[in-house]
């Protein structure tokens, strides 16, 4: 190799190293950004799909009862009757009423759940346990406190009780995971009794504790989570 060719080769290699030094950090930044966007898109798509599954059904409009905070700010809930297209399928129906509950009342001061929280999925087990899987903001954006957390869970339980009789107990997951508390206070390790009235598709669980969440009970009362043996 002639000295001139060698100089060109070394020069070319040096230029490639410099270009790589500049390009690789940019590439790494772009990959990280794309990964973040992909995660966001997946979450958005999940929400859109679950919402679409709920909204595309041609269902009759019925009067649904939803529970938001009382205007007296006294730590109790007030039922609000709203006409909604509700499915006869208990899982779809649960999603419909919970999405409406999450959307909030006309007066945003009476919300019981954070505006950025979403219902990711809802399952109904054969023993009548409804499993509601919420996104992380349900825990992270909810104002911390015994009263605020009790109101949040109670509004979910009472709304399900009023509209989906097949659900007898409620289990709350945060992003697919069981968590010890909602936002530092309320116990989420067990299930909440929702409805003890017998439902055709849901046999009573052995050892079930009498429910506090019956229509005649005072609003804002939660039963203690049942521990699974």
């Amino acid at each position, binding site marked *: 190799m002639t000295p001139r060719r060698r100089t060109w080769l070394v020069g070319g290699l040096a230029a490639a190293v410099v270009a790589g030094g500049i390009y690789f950090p940019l590439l790494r930044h772009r990959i990280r950004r794309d990964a973040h966007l992909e995660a966001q898109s997946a979450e958005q798509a999940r929400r859109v799909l679950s919402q679409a599954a709920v909204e595309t059904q041609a269902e009759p409009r019925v009067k649904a009862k939803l529970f938001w905070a009382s205007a007296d*700010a*006294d*730590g109790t809930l007030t039922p609000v009757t709203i006409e909604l297209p509700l499915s006869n399928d208990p899982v779809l129906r649960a999603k419909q009423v919970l999405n409406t509950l999450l959307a909030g009342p006309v007066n945003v001061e009476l919300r019981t759940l954070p505006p950025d929280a979403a219902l990711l999925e809802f399952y109904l087990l054969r023993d009548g346990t409804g499993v509601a899987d919420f996104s992380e903001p349900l825990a992270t954006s909810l*104002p*911390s*406190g*015994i*009263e*605020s*957390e*009790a*109101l949040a869970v109670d509004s979910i339980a009472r709304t399900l009780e009023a509209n989906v009789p097949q659900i007898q107990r409620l289990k709350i997951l945060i992003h697919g995971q069981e968590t*010890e*508390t909602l936002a*530092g*206070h*309320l*116990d989420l*390790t*067990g299930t*909440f009794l929702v409805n003890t009235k017998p439902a055709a598709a849901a046999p009573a669980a052995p050892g079930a*504790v*009498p429910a*506090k969440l019956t229509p005649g009970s005072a609003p*804002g*009362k*939660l*039963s*203690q*989570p049942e*521990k699974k043996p």
Partner: protein
Amino acid sequence: MPPVRNVLNTIVLDPAHGGTDPGARGVGGIRESDLVLTLAAQIRAALEKQGFSVVQTRQGNDNPSLDDRSAMANAQRGAIFVSLHIGSTGLPGTVRVYTLPDTPAAPLAAGALLPWDRAQATFLPMSRKLAELAQAELTLHFKGSPNTAPSAPVRQLRTIAAPAIAIELSSVSVEQRETLDKMLPGVAEAVARAVAAYKTVYDATPVPGALP
């Protein structure tokens, strides 16, 4: 064998949160974890004046786990547990006293161990009585507070093997910390009066699972 009775002499005060967990936070920079520590000091002084000994689950800005706090309480004999909180919601200037909701507890065989995750179940009637006394005292002083003590499945209470309540003040939403600071002496005095009244009930009640 005659029923076993304990004498109430120790109050376990539990200032909630602490360390990396500030608890409820107000717009004016109010932190629940700081305020409950101040409240605990004031309740402690009021109780010690009445001759009770006081154990705190934390003394400074640390955050023992919920189970560590329970372990501290469950190691005491002749004790009750009072967890202290400042909420984010509710009518400012009001106070609520919580117990776990009622659940039927299986009878405990003589000498049987209390299951850790259901330790509170057998003490619920005693907790309820303590909560009623404390709520009545607090409602006298803080108008707008409920007349009866509410219940909620508070995780901290579930593993306490003693009469246990959680007290929550409203709220960190006030603009000035001074508004809450002014409540603290009244809460401390009311809690001390309720505990003194409860002692007569406690001393006359057979304690579930107590050692002879």
